[in-house]
């Protein structure tokens, strides 16, 4: 399965496709249709709910390939939200909505941040293209269905970020049930993005190796200079550690283990940092070409920053971990 999706991403989510999506709102509808037809966005939803019945770990293997290709489709946002809706949606209307989400006919996402007093959720990941947005309002989980703007707020990583009006949102879960469902969905999101980062880092390192082996200066490949090798070796080491931690986090979240959320946050922070480091080293070792728009490193460099920040400030992520492990801060 991983191989099949890996092939699909390699064939369809080429660097040209990524660039073409950047000209629009950071979304490739054609790729989305193909993925939905192949069953990717709904694979980790239960069979009874119309999904593929795969585990979160299986989904993670596909997400790794998605990350490798920085594919311009909201796979993770949608997959996590589909799982949330299939769990949280009891009432009839939400069931219908969930069914359309699970089939991939509607694109769904979650707003990680708060809803503003004017009912706007700002800078929603995949907000430019999602038909369905789930959010937290007070103690509730609410879901709004509305027409996506189709345009993103221009951003570093060319992600489909957009503000969404959630005034028509309906409550689908409340109280403790809502809190635990939401936290679980966020943990899944973080763990899967950590895996995506491992894919990104792996690909950017492969570019670095290929380029530095072929580029000659002073009569030798630049990849034979030890300064270059050591930078790449450090990046590879951190990225491999990040990959191992990310898959551990996915397993823990999938099994509902108590340390799942903690490992997911840690994996996301470390994965983002390692991938940024790898992208930075590889850009550097491309010399001037790394900075040129023509080469692909810059596509990865910008997403390495964007993927984490669209989920919120890293400092807030650290603060939550600190509160859990060290106890809350004194006022």
């Amino acid at each position, binding site marked *: 399965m991983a191989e099949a999706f890996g092939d699909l991403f390699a064939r369809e989510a080429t660097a040209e496709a990524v660039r073409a999506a950047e000209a629009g709102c950071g979304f490739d509808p054609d790729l989305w249709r193909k993925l939905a037809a192949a069953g990717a966005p709904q694979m980790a939803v239960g069979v009874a709910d119309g999904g593929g019945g795969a585990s979160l770990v299986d989904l993670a293997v596909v997400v790794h390939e998605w990350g490798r290709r920085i594919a311009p489709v909201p796979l993770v946002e949608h997959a996590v939200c589909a799982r949330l809706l299939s769990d949280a949606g009891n009432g009839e209307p939400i069931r219908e909505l969930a069914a359309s989400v699970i089939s991939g006919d509607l694109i769904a996402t979650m707003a990680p941040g708060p809803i503003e007093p004017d009912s706007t959720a700002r800078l929603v990941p995949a907000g430019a293209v999602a038909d369905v947005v789930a959010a937290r309002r007070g103690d509730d989980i609410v879901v709004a269905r509305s027409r996506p703007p189709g345009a993103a707020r221009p951003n570093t990583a060319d992600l489909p970020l957009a503000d969404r009006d959630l005034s028509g949102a309906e409550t689908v879960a409340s109280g403790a049930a809502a809190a635990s469902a939401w936290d679980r969905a966020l943990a899944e999101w973080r763990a899967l993005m950590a895996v995506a980062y491992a894919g990104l880092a792996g690909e950017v390192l492969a570019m670095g190796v290929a380029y530095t082996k072929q580029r000659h200066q002073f009569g030798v490949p630049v990849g034979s200079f030890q300064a270059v090798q050591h930078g790449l070796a450090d990046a590879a080491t951190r990225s491999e550690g990040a990959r191992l931690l990310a898959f551990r986090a996915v397993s823990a979240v999938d099994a509902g283990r108590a340390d799942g959320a903690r490992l997911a946050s840690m994996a996301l*922070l470390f994965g983002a940092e390692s991938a940024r480091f790898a992208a930075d080293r590889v850009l550097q070792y491309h010399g001037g070409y790394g900075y040129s728009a023509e080469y692909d490193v810059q596509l990865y460099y910008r997403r390495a920053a964007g993927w984490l920040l669209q989920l919120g400030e890293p400092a807030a992520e650290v603060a939550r971990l600190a509160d859990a492990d*060290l106890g809350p801060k004194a006022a």
Partner: protein
Amino acid sequence: MPARAEDFRAEVRQFLAEHLTGEMIAATRDGTIHSPALHRAIADRGWLSGAVPAELGGGGMDPVELCVLLEELQLHQAPADALGVAVVGVSMILEHGNEHLRGAVAPRLMSGEALVCLGYSEPESGSDVAAARTRAVRDGDRWVINGSKMWTTLAHVADYVLLLTRTDPEVPKHRGLTFFVVPLDTAGIEIQAVETMGNERSNATFYDDVLLGDEWRLGEVNDGWTVMKTALKYERGIAGGQFPSPPVIEAAVDWARRARRADGSRPIDDDEVRNKLVRAMIDVEVCRSFAYHTAALASEGAMFGVEGSMTKLFASESYKKHCAWFLDMMGAEGLLTHDDPGAHMDGRIEEHFRHAPVTAIYGGTSEINRNLVAEGWLGLPRSR
């Protein structure tokens, strides 16, 4: 992690509660990170022979359990430097040794009755270990050994040294090496202490016309590099040292809760301190991910090499960073050593700060490990 590994962890904790004492840990202040009583107790429990691969005649403990054992020993600051060396030494002897070595030496090492140390490094060669110059010359059915080794850690308490010698200086360096298992009470051996910046003591060892029967030779003549490669293989399997930071973090959290700054605030409420603690805890989880991944590879029978380099590189470099962070966090108080009665937790952070640098040097420096990752993992051309 498999459930049986967690059961085993409980067993190790129980064992340490019974056998590891504060005196044993304090006794390492003399520089010898080895406790005879603890070493024997571990061997008696079957964990030393257990760590030796089954195909060599050891107990074939599951590598994941071995990883748990090493993690718990390190978390409890147990003085167990001789353990890993013994496992590597026994494995080398069982794989390459003649009947004499397998019959007379290996069992004594496995029972914990005798200790072995490693004589690879020399005054003029460390990273380039194949450049060893200590000479062994055949004289009838005996060998005459002359030369000196540097950093022969534990030689002053050990019974044997695994000695890497040059038997043919005329051929390329990797092809003229031969290993010996040398009893350290043989005439002509001198051991001198080498003090270090950390607490541990090492040794310089000198070999002056040391006469040795051929039964002490390990492996074929001039085939020492083959033996060396298996040593590296077993060393990676039981690398140890992948879990250095938790005791430091524990001390840092304790200090951050207790200390009061001039304005009355607690460091634990400072975002900068909290950030560093969280980052260090993340690094610890990365180390655990590496360690248990390599252990799982080993338990599936897969051979790994570069993963071991990555694990050591990450563990030692992050440990150094953590020690520096938490020393700085404490300001002047961080400088107090265990000799000062007011030192926080017996000067634990200060002690680790002095110890940390060596972890990026011995057993293959960080630079050597980066070379290995660049060539073995990334497939980059030989460096220049």
